[in-house]
């Protein structure tokens, strides 16, 4: 069995275990919540590792794309309706070739709990029997994903010529602008109060003959897990394709890659689009799962958490980053338990962050490839390392023999052991 086959088998076993997990802990909402959040961060950390680790694009705007996904989905749920008659009080757009109207609700004034324009229309302008339909959750999530891709394209194009520090500063700026704009546009986004979203399955859902309510954690668990599995499979395929080859070449040396025929612009933009899309998908699902999204998700601390997860797991390995995210999410929860040593009570709700920060610093100082990636690397490439050591030793011996023969030839001595006169033919 090849090492690649073993790796796939391990991945498949892990996926099956997680898929079967709710049979064990499905009745423990807290554990389920931890898993869902861990999967969410695993998508973010692994997609960021594709962007930064594979592509060398150290963006601090990843959470912004996540927020774009969440807010887009939420805003569609809040403002978009389909009706069979024009409301006349909201912004109405006739859908060509159908009897339906797209109605965009008007933002309410700050501090009021007045009816929406559609509520008012129902009481006045809308004929009786008019159908009013809210876009399905999956459609609004899809729009969130598309919006993430569009912004990924935009930012990717804008940062084409930016590298390292400048890229980081630009993306921090983008993230902060988005946070400020969301906070300021209270009539639309509800500002710091947060935008409420419908649950992933507002009317509940049934599968395998079992009915789950809208508040059950089992459906979101599977949605997020399947999204994570999809993201990992997609990124695995991409990493092994020409895309993976080229973005890594870009990371190493953009100019050299271009001189060898790589369309650097296309792949730099593409990696932003792909990773932003994944972040937006995770954000949209998570926002519907939690039921509310606030601009605080965009604070630098949140982005730092994702980066720390990827770095501690292993930046240049999407699997290590994903596993790192899951482990750290659980560790952060486990470390909440405060304890007393003699007269001193250690409040771990505060100190756990210190522990976590220290772990990050130690990793960066002593294990820059992360804590998990080297283990995976060792398993996958252990034989290459042994082979290379053997080659090095053999080459050193050959070089010594060559140098001795060269010296002998210059002194008019015999030809070298390989039977060639130095200076002629291939070594």
């Amino acid at each position, binding site marked *: 069995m090849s090492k690649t086959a073993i790796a796939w088998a391990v991945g498949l076993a892990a996926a099956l275990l997680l898929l079967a997990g709710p049979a064990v802990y499905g009745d423990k909402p807290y554990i389920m919540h931890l898993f869902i959040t861990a999967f969410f961060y695993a998508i973010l950390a692994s997609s960021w590792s594709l962007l930064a680790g594979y592509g060398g694009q150290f963006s601090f705007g990843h959470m912004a794309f996540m927020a774009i996904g969440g807010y887009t989905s939420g805003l569609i749920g809040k403002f978009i309706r389909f009706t069979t008659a024009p409301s006349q009080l909201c912004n109405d757009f006739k859908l060509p070739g159908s009897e339906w109207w797209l109605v965009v609700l008007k933002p309410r004034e700050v501090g009021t709990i007045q009816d929406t324009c559609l509520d008012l229309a129902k009481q006045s302008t809308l004929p009786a029997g008019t159908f009013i339909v809210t876009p399905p959750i999956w459609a609004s999530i899809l729009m969130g994903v598309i919006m993430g891709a569009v912004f990924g394209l935009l930012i990717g194009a804008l940062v084409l010529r930016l590298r390292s520090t400048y890229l980081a500063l630009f993306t921090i700026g983008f993230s902060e602008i988005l946070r400020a704009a969301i906070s300021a546009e209270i009539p639309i986004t509800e500002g710091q109060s947060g935008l409420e979203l419908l649950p992933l399955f507002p009317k509940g859902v049934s599968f395998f003959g079992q009915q789950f309510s809208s508040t059950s954690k089992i459906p979101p668990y599977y949605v997020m897990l399947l999204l994570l599995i999809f993201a990992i499979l997609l990124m695995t395929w991409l990493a092994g394709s020409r895309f993976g080859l*080229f973005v*890594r070449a870009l990371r190493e040396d953009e*100019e050299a*890659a271009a001189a060898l025929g790589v369309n650097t612009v296309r792949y730099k933009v593409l990696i932003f689009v792909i990773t932003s899309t994944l972040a937006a998908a995770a954000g949209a699902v998570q926002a519907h799962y939690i039921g509310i999204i606030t601009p605080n998700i965009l604070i630098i601390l949140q982005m730092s958490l994702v980066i720390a997860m990827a770095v501690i797991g292993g930046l240049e390995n999407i699997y290590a980053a994903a596993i790192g995210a899951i482990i750290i999410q659980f560790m952060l929860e486990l470390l909440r338990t405060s304890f007393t040593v003699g007269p001193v009570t250690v409040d771990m709700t505060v100190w756990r962050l210190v522990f976590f920060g220290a772990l990050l610093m130690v990793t960066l100082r002593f294990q820059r490839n992360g804590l998990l990636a080297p283990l995976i690397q060792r398993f996958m490439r252990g034989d290459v390392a042994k082979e290379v050591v053997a080659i090095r030793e053999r080459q050193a011996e050959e070089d010594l023999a060559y140098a001795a023969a060269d010296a002998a030839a210059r002194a008019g001595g015999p030809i070298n052991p390989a039977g060639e006169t*130095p200076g002629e033919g291939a070594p």
Partner: protein
Amino acid sequence: MIELRVNDVWKNFGGLQVLKGVTFQVNGPELIGLIGPNGAGKTTLTNILDGVIKPSSGTVYLNGRRIDTLPPYGVARAGLGRTFQVTRAFRRMTVMENLLVPAMAKHTTARQKDFEEKAMEVLRFLTMEHLRNEYARALSGGQQKLLELGRLLMLDPDIIILDEPFAGVHPRLMEIIYRYITEINAQGKAFIIISHDMDTIFTLSKRLLVLDYGDLIADGDPAVVREDPRVKQAYLGEEEEEPEWEGVGSKE
């Protein structure tokens, strides 16, 4: 038939005139040396040919196609490959992956498997086949230089520009690079070699271009160029003194 036409290429950076109407042609698989004192404009000319920078005026045609308006990847795909003065291997990629990059970039619908055998042939030619799975960062400086040459073989351009291929290399490695140039040239590829190693460049090249402060002051047979008073002046500052390459050809 390989044909590179460089027509009246000028380049200025602000007030600094780096190239002043450089014109020359490459016809067929020529083996050309490009020399000149520091600051002569060799690297700028290379960067213009490669598409990294655009000329202030003038045109460059490769096999009838204008390439000075193309981005670097377009120039590479059109048939012009280059190495850099400082070796630029993709250090955190394996040797095999380094070789696959140009092949995959040029053949946009190909799969990696299609080129693995060719990559192995290239590695055998460079006596590096045992290092195929090693990361480029683990190679010696000389091996990284060979890897750069291998990548060009995978790109399979018509014209290869080598920027200082002999700088700081082991004599044994020099043999391989020398063999690389002569054998690949014999297979029908044109070379433009920039080097400060006068012994080697005079021995190796069949035609010599000399740049001095952006002017192409000589273009012809190395033996003739060697005696050109302007070239002597450019290198030594004085026409009468012996040039620094005196004694070149003693290896022959």
